[in-house]
């Protein structure tokens, strides 16, 4: 048995170097001027081209979950599609095992996608005419693995993601959470080193999402894949990411561990402004009287802290959207949450 950690150190990570992507009819014409410092606004207003990604330099270490976070329009989905060549950059390199993915064409690129990468999509993108089982072995089918060999693999993964008994169902007979489990099983059955997850859990409702995050972390413990996870949710990024890169307007704004991002935010992406009070509310103890001061559960911590400071109280009752008390929050918990990642409930 080789030590998976030792093994990971010898595996190749992904190096993204000086990556630029310009969208428009003639991107090549402007790449030089963009490199020389033409702004995104000038490119857009005067030349009607959109600067999607600007000078991205990023190391994605092997065997780790690297989260790329950003708001919609920040270019994160564009960036992840460069790693398996679904989008061609205007300039730059994506290096894996010493080879440049950008330079790969046709059969070579297909071979790379078949053997080295697997992808999970935001809207699942399952094949509606294939059953769960057939979806799961799709990647193996494409590679030409005989069914007799592929089926046991697929069945094993279906079981791992908790879908036993649904092998013969069609995707739209399943709920969203179950469909994404199929998406995950399909990606894992490919047994590729790189797992690309494009807002994989964003379309799921919060509880199922948390569930899937747990599933992913458990699997990763054992599989040690190089996972690139795209999200717009800081909570999710902090929970999953060994490292987090923040993308804004097509530029990398900050790269670091979860702690770096929270303690030394490069901008106002700040836990206090994203975590809601309802997440920290603890239930009232038996016989405890609820504090008189009340806050709305959907308010972010920063706002709640300001309200509580203004009122001069250290404790408050948290209300849900219907005005029903759901628990108590105190200033110590708020302070802790704004500094260290909150425990998953």
């Amino acid at each position: 048995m080789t030590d998976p950690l030792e093994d990971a150190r010898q595996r190749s990570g992904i190096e993204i170097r000086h990556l630029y992507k310009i969208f428009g009819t003639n991107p090549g014409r402007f790449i030089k001027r963009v490199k020389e410092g033409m702004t995104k606004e000038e490119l857009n207003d005067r030349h009607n081209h959109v600067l999607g990604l600007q000078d991205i330099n990023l190391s994605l270490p092997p065997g780790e979950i690297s989260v790329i976070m950003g708001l919609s329009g920040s270019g994160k989905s564009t960036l992840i599609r460069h790693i398996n060549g679904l989008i061609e950059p205007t300039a730059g390199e994506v290096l894996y095992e010493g080879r440049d993915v950008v330079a790969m064409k046709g059969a070579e690129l297909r071979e790379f996608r078949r053997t080295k990468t697997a992808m999970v999509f935001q809207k699942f993108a399952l094949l509606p005419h294939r059953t769960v089982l057939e979806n799961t072995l799709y990647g193996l089918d494409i590679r030409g693995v005989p069914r007799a060999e592929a089926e046991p693999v697929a069945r094993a993964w279906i079981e791992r993601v908790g879908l036993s008994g649904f092998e013969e169902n069609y995707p739209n007979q399943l709920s969203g959470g179950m469909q994404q489990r199929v998406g995950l099983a399909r990606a894992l059955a490919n047994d590729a080193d790189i797992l690309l997850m494009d807002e994989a859990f964003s379309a799921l409702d919060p509880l199922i999402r948390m569930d899937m995050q747990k599933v992913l972390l458990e699997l990763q413990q054992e599989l040690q894949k190089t996972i690139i996870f795209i999200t717009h949710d800081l909570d999710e990024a902090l929970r999953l990411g060994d490292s987090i890169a923040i993308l804004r307007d097509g530029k990398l704004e900050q790269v670091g561990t979860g702690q770096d991002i929270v303690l030394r935010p490069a901008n106002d992406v700040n836990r206090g402004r994203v975590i809601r009070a309802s997440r920290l509310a603890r239930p009232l103890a038996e016989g405890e009287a609820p504090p008189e001061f009340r806050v709305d559960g959907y308010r972010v911590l920063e706002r709640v802290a300001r309200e509580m400071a203004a009122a001069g109280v250290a404790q408050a009752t948290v209300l849900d959207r219907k005005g029903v008390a759901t628990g108590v929050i105190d200033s110590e918990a708020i302070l802790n949450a704004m500094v260290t990642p909150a425990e998953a409930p």
Partner: protein
Amino acid sequence: MAECWGLPELMCNFPQLSSGTLRAMRKGIDGGFRDIVRQWSDVIDAATAPLQLFLNFLEDLFTGAPWPLVMIAVLAVVWAGSRQLKTVIGTAIALVLIGVFGLWSDTMTTLAMVAVATLVAILIGLPLGILMARSNRFQAFLSPVLDVMQTLPSFVYLIPVVVIFGIGKVPGLIAVVIYAVPPMIRLTNLGIRLVDREVIEAADAFGADPRQKLWGVQLPLSLPTIMTGVNQTIMMSLSMVVVASMVGVGGLGKNVLQAITNQYFTVGFLNGFALVAIAIVFDRTSQAFGKRLQKHTEVAHD
């Protein structure tokens, strides 16, 4: 002569080429066309020979076989396609009525014609539709051609068809195919283009090559639309066999044509209804078949 309201001649009657020029042009084109056809007649005959053979074979089979056998075969096909008892029963009733009114053999001739025409239309239409879906340039080229094929009065293109291929079954078949193939091409194109882009991206991400994408994703997912195209093609060839009877296609269409020229009211309607009956049988069967192909779209979870 139009009234000129005192306008000069040029503003009054639209300036046209002189009648002499027009006549010379007509003669030149018609003559040249005829010469080319004469020169290539051997090649044209050789090219259409397999079609002729196939058509004759199928027609002989349909008209020559004992009627109970044909009936069972037709009902079996309808059952295999639709899996609906009511469609099978309806078909049986229609066939019995057709036989009772003495139209069995003519109906079989028409059935053979429509079957071959549909087959040829699918063989031409499917690949063209696939090409059209893959290339925007080809689509831009083919779309106006299809527009012309669909709007040009069928009598007009019967003329060159007759000049090139003469009178008979094969020219009739070609006319039917020209008329019936556009929906097949268009709906194949549309079906493939409507396939969810995310699913295509997923296939790409897993390294599917163009052929795997076409056969594994695009065609299966566009099958319902393609089946609508097949259905339309069948319907259009059925309506066209009447017109094609003008160039020597036999069967129900020929009877209708005779009824028109002789004002045989009853014969016209009987044959017309026989065509309608076949059309309904084809339509219900192919639609039910198309629907069965979409089994996976049924939503079963709450």
